[in-house]
């Protein structure tokens, strides 16, 4: 049985409620994976897919 490291130590994956929260924003797409044990949040991972920022180098008209 697979175990997950949490603030309460290793817990069986089967006993955890796992929820993914996906947020798409202008500057990043975020995926937060929340693990709850009897309603208590015991682990939260975040994956942030960063989007570009642009350097602006422009030639001014003469």
């Amino acid at each position: 049985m697979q175990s997950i490291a949490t603030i309460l130590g290793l817990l069986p994956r089967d006993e955890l409620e796992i929820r993914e929260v996906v947020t798409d924003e202008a500057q990043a797409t975020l995926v937060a994976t929340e693990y709850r044990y009897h309603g208590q949040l015991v682990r939260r991972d975040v994956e942030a897919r960063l989007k570009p920022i642009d350097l602006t180098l422009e030639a001014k008209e003469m």
Partner: protein
Amino acid sequence: MANTAGVSVQFKQDAMAAILNGASALKAALYLASATTGAANTAYTATGEVSGANYTAGGVAVANANAVQITGSTAYWTPSANIQYPNVTLSTSFDAVMIYDTARANKAIGVWTFSPQTVIAGTLTLVMPANDAANALLRS
């Protein structure tokens, strides 16, 4: 066909490559949502930086095996691997990462933001976009 004004893409590439070359030693630090870190910051600062279990002040190293490239009139660059903070607990909301160069007195490269997040006994992964003219992390 008319002429067009513009900064040469060669200049853009050279300007970016002057900083993001093999001599750079980049790191990525995280900042609290309550901080004011941004484009006006010239260098890494500990002010407003996150703290928590398994997070080291100054952040983590950033892989920089990608050369600055050109497609059309765009010069671009992306770190060569995702940035990870494994097994951390960052219980106060953070919403920004600064990439900076320890080989140049910690001078800042840029700050990227996202909605406020926390991490509990978990891993924060900053997934790098495709390194192309449309998606690269830094474009000019």
